[in-house]
């Protein structure tokens, strides 16, 4: 039976957590062998360890021209690995890179792709995916129409990464025909050492209820106490209180942290589109009828300026 190929994303040889989640999901689904494809420059050392998450083989494309991401170059490498493995499916983590690469690879292979998948199961020889549509106002259950490989992008932090032990056999991909026209000249760090909301396990977000940019300090103090990242509603971003990279929602980032705290955010559908798949949702809002309470697991009806400072103290107490 054909196996599953998983694209593994790395930055400076650090494997993305979301890629390990995809690898574990492949292991849970595969009828045949699970293979990984790792692309970059000087990354081969990270390949054997992929076995711990279920990869029997790790195909490595190592080339100085692949040091930074290139849709064309990486697509060539993944297509080569696909030619070597003839997989029934290719999985990607739905990171900025995965969301960009998966459709380019799919078109190169002459097939479609299923994006932003939050559940993936097997029905005979087809994979059946569930994905949010209309900004999460509905869920579609879809398949790839019998075409192979089935290219699927998994929403990060929805599938569990499981370490099971093992070492992957490393196979070098050579003879890559790299014709890279769109060249990433540099990766500019705009994070300033902060955790990116798209990567964070805990997010504390502020909205218009903060009343002004200076009050994001309050959000930041809670985020810091929890070891999380700072998010924001579009109203706060559009007011110029905080940079767009913090925005969560339909026109911002889609996140699924294990804890999402929304303070002074009403819960407009476009905001919910970006965070409703968070595992635990907490709302702090002075309006008991704010829509955010409808999807909140926990909440406080009250003034965020009176609630957040003692919360920070309580969290610090826990940390001891």
């Amino acid at each position, binding site marked *: 039976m054909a196996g599953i190929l998983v694209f593994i994303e790395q930055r400076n040889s650090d494997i993305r957590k979301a890629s390990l989640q995809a690898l574990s999901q492949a292991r849970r689904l595969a009828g045949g062998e699970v293979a990984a494809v790792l692309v970059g420059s000087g990354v081969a050392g990270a390949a054997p360890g992929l076995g711990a998450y279920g990869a029997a083989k790790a195909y490595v494309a190592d080339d100085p021209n692949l040091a*930074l991401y290139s*849709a064309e170059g990486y*697509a060539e490498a993944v297509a080569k690995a696909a030619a070597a493995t003839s997989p029934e499916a290719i999985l990607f983590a739905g*990171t*900025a*890179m995965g*969301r*960009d690469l*998966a*459709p380019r690879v799919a*078109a190169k292979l002459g*097939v*479609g*792709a299923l*994006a*932003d998948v939050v559940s993936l199961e097997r029905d005979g020889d087809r994979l059946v995916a569930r994905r949010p*549509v209309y*900004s*999460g106002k*509905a*869920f*579609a259950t*879809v*398949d*790839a129409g019998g*075409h192979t490989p089935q290219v699927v992008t998994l929403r990060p932090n929805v599938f569990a990464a499981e370490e099971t032990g093992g070492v992957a056999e490393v196979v070098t991909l050579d003879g890559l025909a790299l014709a890279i026209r*769109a*060249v*990433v*000249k540099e*990766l*500019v*760090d*705009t*994070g300033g050492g*902060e955790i*990116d909301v*798209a990567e964070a396990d*805990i997010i504390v977000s502020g909205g218009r209820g903060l009343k002004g940019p200076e009050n994001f300090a309050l959000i930041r103090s809670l985020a810091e106490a*929890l070891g999380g990242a700072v998010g924001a509603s579009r109203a706060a971003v559009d007011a110029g209180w905080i940079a*767009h990279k913090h925005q969560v929602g*339909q*026109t*911002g980032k889609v996140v699924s942290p294990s*804890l999402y705290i929304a303070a002074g955010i009403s819960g407009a559908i476009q905001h919910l589109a970006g965070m409703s798949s968070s595992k*635990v949702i907490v709302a702090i809002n002075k309006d008991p009828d704010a829509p955010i*309470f*409808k*999807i*909140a*697991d*926990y*909440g*406080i*009806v*009250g003034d965020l300026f*009176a*609630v957040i400072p003692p919360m920070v103290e*309580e969290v610090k107490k*826990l940390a001891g």
Partner: protein
Amino acid sequence: MNCIVCVTSVPDTASVIKIGPDGKKIDEGGIKWILSPFDEYALEAALQLTEAKGGEVTAVTYGPARAEAALRDCLARGAHQAVHVAGGEATLGDSFTIATVLAKAFAGRSYDLVLCGVKGVGTDCSQVGQMLAELLAIPHVANVTKLEVGDGSLTAGRDVEGGQERVECPLPALITCQKGLNEPRYAALKGIMAAKKKPVEKVEVASLGVTEGADPFYVVRSLELPPPASEGTIIKGEDDPAGAAAQLVNLLRSEAKAI
């Protein structure tokens, strides 16, 4: 500098979504259709480029009859030409078929830059641009929030986690446009009136050699509303905010095990 902007008509983002009788599509009754918000950034970028450098903006859509309104919107904002590939009901969400149809519709048209929205709001796939670039055998840059176009090449800023990639790319190329790239203009009344008189070129999808629904790459088995959220634990914190805060942190630790 000739630009082709690919646009799509989608339900207004504030729409209430109901499931249609077949259990696979939305109930379109009462839905207001708009130009997909990200396509506005693509159109604006194309208009600014042609204003600065000359050339024409062609807006292309593949969609049912109502999609013509999205093209009229583009014409009203300043697009020079509009092409409507009629169809698309059976291929909703099928990014690869949509990209195939668009690529075929491009045949014989000249372009330096193809611009798409980063995603079509609704189906939320975010894939057509990259697939179209591959089928057209041109390079692409997705999720663009910064753009400079020079002679025969472009430099784009593309947002990724914690950073921005600076990408250089020869033309012709394709970009997908993200919020932050520009501030889309509104259509002025004069533009709206003029747009009514501008021709929209009609293309039948069959004439492109595509039989819709014959060989789908995206099959919707069912469409459902999300399960109703279970009642959360909401603490009244107006009178004793510090007590509420302590209770919440305690619940997050001992019950939710989230901290």
